[in-house]
């Protein structure tokens, strides 16, 4: 066994087309579009049985046009990231076992997609994922349980309870979030300068 798996933070193998799947369900957000292009471009036969779900506002500039140009059998645009997840769940509820699920985009988005699938009995490792986009994280405050999206530095200020939180490298697949813990609990007010999250 590889010791690199000793981490609660998921590793993402990268989008690789599984030609044995009877259909492909691809969910894209943020900067995920190039990963989909890399994996699917030119695979005409596969694209004939591919559904791509993405959100207008979330797919980075230029990405949307290029996804359209792929000419997948179906391309469904949602108004927001939230609508996109709802649409994804609707498709899952009608899906059968011959579909392969692919997700490309931000880490928190991947987490939400995998968690949705897992709730429906899907083994998380069977979801093909590739992380693209910024290093920002979705973080749950362990104290007030508020979740902040797009956290880019640690410590940051929880918008739920206002406390300064250290972002731990500890990832919950159920919440699709990292853990934030008050950094100055021992000496209140002793908050070190924020550092950009590196990865």
């Amino acid at each position, binding site marked *: 066994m590889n010791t690199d798996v000793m981490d609660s933070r998921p590793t993402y193998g990268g989008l690789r087309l599984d030609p044995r799947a009877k*259909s492909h369900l691809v969910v894209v957000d943020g900067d995920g579009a190039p990963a989909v292009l890399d994996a699917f471009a030119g695979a005409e036969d596969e694209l004939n049985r591919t559904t791509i779900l993405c959100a207008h506002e979330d797919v980075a500039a230029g990405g949307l046009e290029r996804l359209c140009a792929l000419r997948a059998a179906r391309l469904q645009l949602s108004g927001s990231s939230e609508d996109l997840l709802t649409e994804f769940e609707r498709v*899952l*509820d009608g*899906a*059968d076992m*011959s*579909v392969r699920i692919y997700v490309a985009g931000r880490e928190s988005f991947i987490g939400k997609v995998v968690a949705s699938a897992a709730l*429906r009995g899907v*083994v998380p490792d*069977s979801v093909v994922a590739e992380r693209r986009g910024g290093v920002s994280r979705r973080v749950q405050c362990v104290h007030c349980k508020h979740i902040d999206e797009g956290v880019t530095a640690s410590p940051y200020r929880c918008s739920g309870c206002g406390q300064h939180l250290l972002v731990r490298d500890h990832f919950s697949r159920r919440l699709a979030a990292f853990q934030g813990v008050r950094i100055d609990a021992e000496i209140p007010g002793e908050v070190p300068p924020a550092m950009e999250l590196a990865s």
Partner: protein
Amino acid sequence: MSGGVEIAVVVAEIEQAARNVKRFRFAAKDGGSLPHFAAGSHVVVLMRDGERTIRNAYSLIDRAEDGSSYRIGVLRTPNSRGGSKFMHERVSVGDELRITMPVNLFPLFHPGRKHLLIAGGIGVTPIYAMADELQRRGALYEIHYAVRDEAHGAFIDEMRARHGDRLKLYRRDLEEILAVDQILPGQPLGTHLYVCGPEGMIEAVLEGGLEAGWPKEHLHAERFQTPPTGEPFALRLAKAGLTCEVRGDQSMLEALEEAGFDPPSLCRGGACGQCAVDVLEADGELIHNDHYLSAAERASGEKIMLCVSRLKGRELVLDL
């Protein structure tokens, strides 16, 4: 077995369940209740044959409602190394045997949305227990059971009574074929498949699953198997300073046990990894028959599993 808990049992009932299959009912010798077990579990049955102890693993079919007994099914195999022959010919009602605590290496994936149970022949025994458990839990399931002919009647009648039309039967004598390409299409997302039967059938079903577009993580198989026979060879334990001969009809594990050495082991079928040991020298080819070691571990030639693997050569030296 390696310090594991053993239970003394008495054979309470023997039934010819199919042409080559006997079903045995074991009751606790002390009259108490036997431990509960989760579907997919097996026990190792220890049979005293003179000076020799034969140990074979058998899946548990069920446990009586009042906990007083277990049932197992034993197929008489033509190339039996002794165990199934012993059970068929030498064991009668009232005899005492010892069994180990149940161990489960073939668990259900309970978070699954639906469960497809596929059995061939004697492979029905764990599937029988799984179907009962899924029914108790109120889960969605189907049973697909392939038999040679109606002679498998005992299992069929009981399962039909319990599971009604959730049981689909395939009789080879009526030219009914259990074809995965008929069963798998359209199964809802979150379905898990479990297969137990002859090795060839398992391979075909798993391959059929991939062919039907299923991810491999949703395909589960009962992997343990009886130790293959082969050519005899010598075994030397470097630390213990022990040398013994492995006969063609026994495994290294059995040879060591016969020589009074008790290495760690659990499933005796190449699945759990408990008996993996380091190889120090081998003057021949290692024949790996397990489902545990990774391809890299096999290629390294540094590890071998005592329960099912062999040497094709003269002498094997182990770090024991």
